[in-house]
């Protein structure tokens, strides 16, 4: 019984980090109606940036946040404005922008394989001041960096939610996601909003990367499992919904960790695909999705 509670809590911890990557994905989709298939690769870029920052400076791992998060924001900002925007604009009037989706997969392949060329395929771990520290609670053991990571993630998601609800820029972003034409009639510059939304989506990845590196391996294709999980989460929570992404992330984390108590870890992966297909077939708008988005 204790084991299951332990797995449950571990699932919530890991799930909230999955949730943060999914928040980035869902934000980009909400505004641009484009699924960013390169999302996991951007997480990988963030993880390598964090890895090298810690390795070269030897500072506390969480001090990487003020460096890596803005870095990823501008990386996303310029990726959108230089690579994706021209293609997106050519396809602006198409209901289902396929070309943009496939271009993001192109970016995925370029980033993953470039990092394979530069850094090689080996798994890297970095020893930081929190790595391997255990937090004990009623005979249950949790990794300290996981707890810190989940805490930072939740704060980050709450801030993002507040930002979108109350700040001026947040309102502009929401207006664009609801109705592009009406928003630009109100004087909101669309291309700028797309850049910012993409940048913020990538910054979420940067944040997730910073909290992952102290307890996770870094390797060139590390993004792929996170990518696939983020897809599952956004469909589960509803494409375009931020609370949906966090709750979806926690559900995925719980399924993965509790499932591993009863079956081999590779089977839990299959369980996730099953849940994903089930949700797609039964309620494609997910838990919190808007009807107009599917």
């Amino acid at each position, binding site marked *: 019984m204790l084991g299951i509670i332990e797995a449950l809590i571990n699932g919530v911890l890991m799930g909230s980090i999955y949730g943060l990557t999914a928040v980035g994905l869902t934000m980009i*989709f909400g505004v641009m*109606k*484009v*699924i960013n298939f390169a999302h996991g690769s951007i997480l990988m870029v963030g993880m390598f940036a964090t890895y090298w920052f810690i390795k070269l400076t030897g500072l506390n791992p969480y001090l990487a946040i003020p460096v890596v998060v803005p870095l990823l924001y501008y990386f996303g900002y310029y990726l959108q404005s230089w*690579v994706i925007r*021209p*293609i997106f604009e*050519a*396809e602006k009037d198409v*209901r*289902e*922008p*396929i*070309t943009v*989706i*496939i*271009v993001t*997969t*192109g*970016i*995925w*392949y*370029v980033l*993953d*394989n*470039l990092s*394979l*060329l530069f850094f090689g*395929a080996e798994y890297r771990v970095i020893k930081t001041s929190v790595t391997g520290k255990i937090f004990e609670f009623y005979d249950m053991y949790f990794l300290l960096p996981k707890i810190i990571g989940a805490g930072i993630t939740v704060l980050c998601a709450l801030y993002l939610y507040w930002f979108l609800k109350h700040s001026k820029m947040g309102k502009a972003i929401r207006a664009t996601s609801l109705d592009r034409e009406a928003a630009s009639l109100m004087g909101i510059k669309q291309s700028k909003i797309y850049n910012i939304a993409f940048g913020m989506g990538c910054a979420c990845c940067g944040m997730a990367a910073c909290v992952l590196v102290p307890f996770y391996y870094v390797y*060139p294709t590390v993004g*792929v499992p996170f990518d*696939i999980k983020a*897809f*599952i989460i956004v*469909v589960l929570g509803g*494409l375009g919904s931020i609370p949906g992404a966090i709750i979806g992330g926690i559900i995925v984390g719980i399924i993965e960790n509790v499932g591993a108590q009863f079956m*081999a870890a*590779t*089977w839990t*992966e*299959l369980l996730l*695909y*099953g849940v*994903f*297909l089930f949700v*797609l*077939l039964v309620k*494609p708008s997910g838990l919190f999705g808007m009807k107009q*988005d*599917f």
Partner: protein
Amino acid sequence: MKQLLNQKPIILLISALLIGALLILPLVVTNPSLMQIFILIILYAYFTSTWNFVGGFAGVLPLGHSAFIGIGAYTSTVLFQTYGISPWFGMLVGGLLAALVGIIIGLPTLKLRGAYFALATIAVGEGLRVLVENVKEVGPFKLNGPSGISLPLTESAFMNFQFDSKAPYYYIILIMLLIVLLLTYFMMNSKVGYYLAAGGEEPEAAEALGIKVARYKLIAMLVSCFLAALGGTFYAQLMLYIYPKSILGLDLSFEIAFIALIGGRGTILGPVLGALLLRPVSDLTRIYLGSSLPGLHLVIFGLVLIVVMRYYPKGLVEPVKQLLERFIHKPARDKANNQSNPSSRQE
């Protein structure tokens, strides 16, 4: 058929010459590894052409096509391995099985927005790979999990679908490709093709005109999955060794989608052009740089894709067509000029 023969004589002549050259190629090329590269180009053109039925004409983005290829490969292989059933028969069984799976996936997802369809197909493709990697055997059939299946070697015979030389493989896949291209041609010029084109561009408008868009998309999906599985059997017989990472999963699915988009989706020759351009890149970088620079061919694929989508969003078939047309029309125009000049002089 009439439509087909109604093309300009010069186009018919060029295609006849091209097909003739393709037919005698194995007589000229005797190096088996070079032959293998040609076979793989044609095989990928075939895979991409089957992808094209859904990805090109139905206006959605399937990213799990390897699932159907894998179903074809595994079905014929386990039937041959366990019961000694000819792969030709197993090919049909695999095709029907893949079509069935295609319907089960397509029925709910083809009604959704393109993004959902892309995600669902990724989940099916990856899910199937994880499933096969986890399963050692299903009933009497041995799948061997991630290590895959080596096909039992038999004597070179048509019914065994195993040959000593590469030439028979070459002719089989060439005929399969020609059949698929003909099917594509007829579909494009049929009612189904027009309905699909209408449904892909403006689903609401098409629905309003009484076209059951989802039903025609489902037909396209069915044909596509069936044909993809046949290609999967061919792959298994050519390589004589299949394992989940090679024939299921993301890499193959994405490679097919990349070839289609770079070549030009929704056109007959786009997939062929794409395979012709990209397959050699992947083979040559793998042969010459594979050990020192792993993954380089995928960087090239990705960059080519981004650049092509930026400047030719309809694929490279567009500029090639323009070039050809200029080439074909130029003599005709010169002739017309020559004819008009003497007549003016007479007056």
